[in-house]
């Protein structure tokens, strides 16, 4: 039973345009959400996070939006750059322990030059 779902396994975007990566979750008790980026042969790298008390968090080119009623979050990258090409994982944590991240299956983003 997948509690965190990333339904798009891959996404291609032109350099300079917006990339939108989506994530859905089923457990309404999740209260903290994160995005990680992963390059081949490396571990995931923390990108941005959001607490359930917010609906938006911005850090440079990266913005995460949280829609609690829809149990949906999205990561926007503007403008997209070729170096953003990687696998992006959405993760959530909550009542079982804030440290216990539940990850989605990832979306592979390819930014075309």
């Amino acid at each position: 039973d997948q509690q965190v779902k990333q339904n798009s396994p891959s996404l291609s975007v032109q350099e300079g345009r917006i990339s939108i990566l989506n994530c859905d979750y089923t457990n309404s008790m999740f209260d903290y959400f994160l995005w990680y980026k992963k390059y081949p042969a490396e571990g995931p790298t923390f990108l941005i996070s959001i607490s359930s008390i917010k609906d938006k968090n911005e850090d440079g080119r990266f913005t995460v939006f949280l829609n609690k009623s829809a149990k949906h979050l999205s990561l926007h990258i503007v403008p997209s750059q070729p170096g953003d090409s990687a696998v992006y994982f959405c993760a959530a944590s909550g009542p079982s322990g804030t440290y216990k991240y539940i990850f989605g299956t990832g979306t592979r983003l390819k930014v075309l030059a």
Partner: protein
Amino acid sequence: GAGVSQSPRYKVAKRGQDVALRCDPISGHVSLFWYQQALGQGPEFLTYFQNEAQLDKSGLPSDRFFAERPEGSVSTLKIQRTQQEDSAVYLCASSDRLAGNEQFFGPGTRLTVL
């Protein structure tokens, strides 16, 4: 500064062999985590240490899996009598926060069981 390091980076084991995977967390980080990432999946939580205490081992898939962190720094994940379904990338992460938010991941150890 140095990040989380793991060794070996790649390990091939014959079915039934025991393996030991090492994690060196970022210096001073109190929290340490192990995850298992199967092919095409996201990382799955295995266990959590706060200093030397193993506070949560609910994700360990069987009693063949054992983790320790005896001095609150380096950690070892041991898998006894490996089976083919144990083939995965094993990721270690550390955090300077007790709650474990913003975990920093190592590069992982890719274990292949033949």
